[in-house]
């Protein structure tokens, strides 16, 4: 039986075409979502303007015109992001989780969506890593570095325990020197 072999250039071109169409479709879906979000936010903005009028009885308010602010994302009550990370790592123990999968979990849990990779990266760096760093500083979780230097290196996070480290055990096993009496 002779094996049919497609010309490699043809194969690549077809594949690439399909991939580009796939990416355009993803962009079209994301644009739809963003347009819908934009329309919703326009409505909220109009309502906030109307309420501002009510609160100031039509007088000038302290900040006019109102500038734009790149505000922090909301997580409900104060400390919710850290609490979610705490519970996630505690449930995963003794497994350690990497920053990327923690970011995905946070985004899914709080319903955050990102229009670009850069937005996701900013969220990971500004919010998730910040919260993980605070938990590590407080001793609630451990920061582990896995792999060698370079692209393969990953930061892992694990639920902290009160178990001693290998170095601490080694120190504790050394015989203590008792001073002799005079």
């Amino acid at each position: 039986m002779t094996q049919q072999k497609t010309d490699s250039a043809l194969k690549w071109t077809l594949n690439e075409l399909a991939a580009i169409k796939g990416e355009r479709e993803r962009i079209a879906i994301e644009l739809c979502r963003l347009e819908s979000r934009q329309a919703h936010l326009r409505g909220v903005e109009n309502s906030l303007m109307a309420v501002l009028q009510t609160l100031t009885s039509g007088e000038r308010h302290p900040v006019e015109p109102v500038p734009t602010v790149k505000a922090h994302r909301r997580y409900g009550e104060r400390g919710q992001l850290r609490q979610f990370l705490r519970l996630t790592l505690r449930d995963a123990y003794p497994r350690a989780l990497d920053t990327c999968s923690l970011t995905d979990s946070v985004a899914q849990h709080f319903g955050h969506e990102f229009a670009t990779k850069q937005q996701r990266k900013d969220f990971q760096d500004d919010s998730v890593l910040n919260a993980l760093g605070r938990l590590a500083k407080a001793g609630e979780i451990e920061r582990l570095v896995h792999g060698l230097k370079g692209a393969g290196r990953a930061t892992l996070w694990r639920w902290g325990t009160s178990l001693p480290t290998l170095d601490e055990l080694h120190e504790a096993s050394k015989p203590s020197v008792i001073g002799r009496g005079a």
Partner: protein
Amino acid sequence: MMGLTMTRTRTQTTLNKLALKVAEAHGELAYLDGLLSGENAAAGQASAEAFSEAERGALEQRRTAIISARNALYVVIRQFDPDLDPAQIGSVASWKGTLKRFRNAKSLLRAYIAQCSALQRGSSGPP
């Protein structure tokens, strides 16, 4: 000058104030609906037909404005906390403001109509 921040602190005081505005809108709307439907016999009117065309126009315009303000407040309260249902907020009488000095229902009604008419004239003033 007031500074704007990236944090979106929500306080109970703010929620109280917004909820009060909703309750005032509910209160005034209940009063207006009573007037326009003629059910509010305590207001000293015989029936809804007791209003002149101009008075009715002013009251209906006021009703539209109150509903618009109420809906904006609903959106803002849900923005504050999506778990809250602003429609469940009751009503208060403090919507009367300076009109509360009119203890008599009939005099309150006259003063209220005068206020609504003044608002209508103010909103349809020269561009």
